């Protein structure tokens, strides 16, 4: 994380443009962005300017500092940061400027993840939610909800095993996993060839692949290599299942890009927990 000497401060139409750009990234990378709006409680734009100076020194390169039409307001866009990170940032800010330039400030933190949230709306929501003036020095922040749910994330799940009954069992187990904000599309395959011939793997959706190492026609290693060779291979999370207790094979599979290994017979609850963990890790 490199720290620039002086961040640019942007405003107006350019701010709207940057906001839209970053919001699009949020959706594609599934990484929340936080918007922080600060206001000098007494409307003292001089103090606001001093804090702005301070901020230009301590912001990360990807963070964006902006101005609104109100001179006593300072805005921040923190990509790849949820509200916890934003709070942490504000606390750090308070620590480095204990004197005059810091406070009393009102702050509102809003997580941005919905495609329909415009910059105007976001700012309006923040302003509305700011707490009553307290008169004390320091930053007083509130969390703000946009009232919009996280967009539902479509996740594909492929289950590959030679045994039909086992495929169905895993399918039922996966389909019953209930996670807010995630919708699962599960498909099962009897062999590796059917998967690689289908266009199922082409879409951008995050994709969880659960497969046996021994499969008819194209075996697990073959499929693993093919998936990892695809241009947007990061979308795959791959879980291998094996009956062979061979460490050599496991090491090789991890080196070739598998994300997890299950030794048959395995605990179904363990399997479900792993799948849940992987799905939960999709939004950060």
């Amino acid at each position, binding site marked *: 994380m490199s720290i620039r000497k002086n961040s640019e401060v942007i405003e107006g139409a350019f701010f709207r443009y940057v906001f839209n750009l970053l919001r699009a990234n949020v959706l594609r990378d599934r990484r929340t962005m936080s918007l922080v709006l600060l206001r000098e409680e007494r409307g003292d734009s001089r103090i606001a300017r001093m804090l702005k100076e301070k901020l230009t020194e301590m912001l990360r390169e990807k963070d964006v500092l902006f101005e609104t039409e109100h001179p006593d307001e300072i805005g921040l866009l923190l990509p790849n940061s949820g509200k916890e990170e934003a709070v942490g940032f504000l606390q750090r800010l308070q620590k480095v400027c204990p004197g005059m330039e810091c406070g009393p400030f009102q702050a509102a933190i809003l997580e941005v993840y919905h495609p329909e949230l415009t910059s105007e709306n976001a700012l309006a929501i923040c302003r509305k939610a700011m707490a009553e003036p307290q008169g004390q020095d320091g930053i007083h922040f509130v969390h703000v909800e946009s009232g919009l749910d996280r967009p539902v994330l479509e996740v594909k799940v492929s289950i590959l095993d*030679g045994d039909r009954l086992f495929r169905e069992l895993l399918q039922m187990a996966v389909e019953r996993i209930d996670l807010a904000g995630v919708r699962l599309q599960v498909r099962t395959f009897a062999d590796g060839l059917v998967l690689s011939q289908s266009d199922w793997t082409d879409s951008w959706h995050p994709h969880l692949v659960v497969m046996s190492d*021994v499969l008819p*026609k194209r075996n697990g290693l*073959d499929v693993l290599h093919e998936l990892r060779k695809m241009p947007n291979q990061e979308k795959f999370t791959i879980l291998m299942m094996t*009956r062979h207790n061979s460490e050599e094979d496991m090491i090789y599979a991890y080196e070739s890009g598998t994300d997890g290994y299950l030794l048959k017979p395995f605990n179904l609850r363990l399997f479900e927990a792993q799948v849940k963990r992987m799905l939960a890790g999709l939004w950060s």
Partner: protein
Amino acid sequence: MTSIHIAMQVFGVIIFLYMAAVILSYSIMFVLAFRTLRRERSLDRRELDARFVDAFYSKPVTILVPAYNEETGVIATVHSLLNLDYPQTELLVIDDGSKDGTAAVVIEQFDMVRARKSVDPQLATKPVKEVYRSRIHPNLWLIRKENGGKGDALNVGINFARYSYFCTIDGDSILDESSLLRVMKPIIMSDGKVIAAGGNVRIVNGMDVEYGAVSSTKLSGKPFVVMQIVEYLRAFLMGRIALSKYNLVLIISGAFSVFSKKPVIRAGGYNTTTIGEDMEMVVKLQRMLKEDKLGGRIEFVPDPVCWTEAPQTISVLRKQRRRWHQGLLESLWAHRKMTFNPKYGAVGMISVPYFWLIECLGPVIELAGYVYVITAFFMGGIYYEYAVALVLLLVLYGTVFSMGAVLLESWSLGTFPKIHNVFRMMLLTLTEVVWYRPLTLIWRVEGLVRSIFRISSWGDMERVGATGTKGAGK
């Protein structure tokens, strides 16, 4: 009575008695096979697979795939071998100086790069050119060597093999997922007392094959192929099962068999000059077991299946049969010392004579039978009776046994689930006696004649046997 008539009568009786003896011995083997199959028919073999799939109990195997001009079939074979359900294998494709793109397709398909592999040159072979290793499957290797024949390629493979058991697969054959596990079963179960085991070879023509997996078992439409399928069934039911029961096996197919490396090296590896190196190896091993009193066994296992491509045209089939028979005779001749030699136990007293008299000499006499029938009809008179009797025997020998084999197979193993396929095979066997049987007989006799010439031009055949048994100890 003229001398012709006496000759006719004598020949008639000889042929008749011979055929009767052959039929009797086949019947005995058929019954033995029937009993074995009935016993194991409903056994769920997956249970045993599940027991041995654990790396602790099974033994690692190096799979050798000798390939000479196999650019069309080799990829499917390798795929099927990569998909084997077996804990630890190493797969060596040995390109025996192919003139086509065998090596190129393998390198391309499996993303291979030049690599080093340690070698233990226990067997003298033709020079090795280069070694490749796959970047996708770390256990897959390709060894390129100068052309030296299948036996030589296998010897190279043995030198490079990392594990103490090796499995030989033809470059155009396909294994089922569980085949290796099942063929290794007698070896694992016997604590290594079984030093070699062979699986059951089936014909793949007509089936749907994709990436080395047989996706559905259909019956080929070609009568030539169907006849060969029936022939394979017969060979396996009326021979291998029964012989294996009493450790009398002299042939396990080179298309799919496993060996313990040590005894093979001790026996000097594969013979590179003989035609049927796979049979020669088994005979050599049997001979060594008896001579050195090692007490090992060689087994045939009926359920692990290896699918292989059968000749589609008459000329290729003819060449194949000729070769087989040459191989048979040469192996027997090289080890002729074993014939009726009590030192070699049951193998010497039963097995070798059986192969001499029935497998090797059989075609000559059967063909003579055909000739006799035709002559007898022309000569008329009392010979009608001989002719009718012989025809009946030929029918019994050919058709009835074939039909029985088809039925027994479909009852016990059920390779072809559709009943109409079974009927088609049975109907076709009705015609066997008049076309397929005599044709193959002629080809086999041809092979016999050829190898007699080859052997006499060879001179000192004893040499082969001698180096064969002394083996690596030079």
